[in-house]
């Protein structure tokens, strides 16, 4: 199988805030489809997304996305014309209706012709299944609906590069599932970078995954490769094994342990979460599967 062409290449991205190194020599590449960005709180996920969305320039390093180099004004403008960005806490003008808000974002995206802009607004609201509530004020919409409004705004102009910062946080399971369906649809033919701290999001949606911790890339590969890092390192026991790096009681009453198993341990099939936990527990060097 021919590998998918690379659509984004970042090299040596570094960014400091005061004395904190929010990004520390981050290099990665993306292809079309949904790539998950996993990491604990404070790992630098939002900072990386802000840099790749051109909201903040890095102190060092650079990247090219969809053939554009945002270090030049022409490259930045060209990339922004192909960018859809859903921030971690998307802000809304609360008195705007869903239609008015997406219309406003469409104007920011240079859609100045009123008729064409309104057609596009209707298209994206329909894509996220919000046509019925387009005239409702945003402050009257549920959290899940607001996230879909923000996704609709990100989809205006049919962008080739979509940056989504923890879009499933705060959603109930049904809303989360609906949102995953929408992201999966959005990922067809586009480069999507999805930041999350939920391994289920990655397992269900992503063809590639990047793990970030303390501003550094700890893993870059496929979800299967991340899962495989825990092969032979997950076992079951009647009590929590003190040798385990992580262990918890499961619904069956036994303990699931992750780490270096003792001789003769009852090994279990690893999950993506096991691989993720072990990756976070590893050394600080960047690892590529």
């Amino acid at each position, binding site marked *: 199988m021919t590998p998918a062409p690379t659509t984004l290449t970042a090299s040596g991205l570094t960014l400091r*805030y005061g004395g*904190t190194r*929010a*990004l520390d020599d981050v290099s990665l590449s993306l292809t079309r489809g949904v790539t998950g960005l996993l990491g604990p709180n*404070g*790992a*630098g*996920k*939002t*900072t*990386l997304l*802000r840099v790749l*969305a*051109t*909201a*903040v*320039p890095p102190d060092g390093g650079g990247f090219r996305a969809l053939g554009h180099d945002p270090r030049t*004004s022409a490259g*930045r*403008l060209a990339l*922004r*014309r192909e*960018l859809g*960005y859903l*921030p971690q806490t*998307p*802000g*809304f*003008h*609360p008195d*705007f*209706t869903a*239609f*008015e808000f997406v*219309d*406003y*974002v469409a*104007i*920011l*995206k*240079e*859609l*100045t012709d*009123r*008729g064409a*802009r*309104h*057609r596009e607004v*209707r298209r994206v609201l329909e894509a996220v299944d919000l046509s019925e509530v*387009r*005239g409702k004020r945003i402050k009257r919409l549920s959290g899940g609906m607001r996230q879909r409004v923000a996704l609709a*705004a990100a989809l205006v102009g049919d962008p080739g590069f979509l940056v989504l910062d923890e879009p499933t946080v705060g959603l109930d399971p049904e809303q989360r599932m609906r949102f995953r369906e929408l992201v999966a649809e959005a990922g067809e033919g586009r480069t999507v970078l999805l930041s999350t701290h939920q391994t289920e999001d990655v397992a269900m949606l992503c063809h590639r995954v990047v793990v970030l911790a303390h*501003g550094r890339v700890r893993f870059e590969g496929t979800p299967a490769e991340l899962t495989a890092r825990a092969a032979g390192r997950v076992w079951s026991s009647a009590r929590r094994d003190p040798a385990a790096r992580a262990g918890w009681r499961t619904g069956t009453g036994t303990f699931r342990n992750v780490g270096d198993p003792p001789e003769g341990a009852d090994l279990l099939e690893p999950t993506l979460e096991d691989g993720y936990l072990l990756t976070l527990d590893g050394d600080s060097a960047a690892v590529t599967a």
Partner: protein
Amino acid sequence: MTWHVAEEDLRAYARGELAPPSLWSADTHLTACAQCRARLAGATEPAVLDAGWERLDAELDAPRPGPFERVLLRLGVADHTARLLTATPVLRRSWLLAVLSLLMMTVLVVRVADTPGLFLALAPLLPLAGVALSFGPSLDPTFEMAVVAPLHGFRLLMIRTVAVLTTGLVCNGLATLALPGYGLSALAWLLPALALTATGLALSARLGPVLAPALVGGGWLALLLVATTRADGHTPVPFTAAGQSAAAGLAALATVLLVQSRDRFDTGRAGHFAGGDLP
């Protein structure tokens, strides 16, 4: 129905050439008036008529402009620019009422105390504060989306600045009219207002949208304090001819510096996220 769409407007509507706000009036009227719909059908080719119905259908979805937006449209502002301005927090009614109330109280104090000093000190600060509050993450909830949008950040800043500055100057102008006894000297706030606003914006490119206007506002008050102390019963220096000339020069210089640093408003380098909860 007390009126019907004029024949000329109806033909322009059928051709898709009727411009807002007449277009919106025609849309609204046609949804309720069977007589005008029949006239429209009679005056139009079937294919054009279908396109018209589709457009009408779309119009029914489209947001109705609020009073402020309608005023802008009647003043000839393009519909997309008007919509950008409706999202400017300090142009909302509550903010404008607060500014007008503050000015009214100031005018009352000036009239009772018979000294224009308080008004001349306050009036330049209002446009500075209004412009400072019209961009940046503290009051614009969509700031982060706007930063990464292809619309140049400096252009958005200028659109909002012109609108807020104009509104602020009009409010101050109305207050000045309530102080006729002081003649032209009651207008001595104008050049300092332009100087403070331009300086605040120029410094925002490097110091961010909070620190820069705070420093400029504080500097203005400190200058007034020193000038009033040294005035010894005369007009404080900022309101003399020399002070006004200096204010004009500062406004021009700051404007040049602002234009030179325009790209910083487009790259996130203007300190907008410096105080954020990154990473």
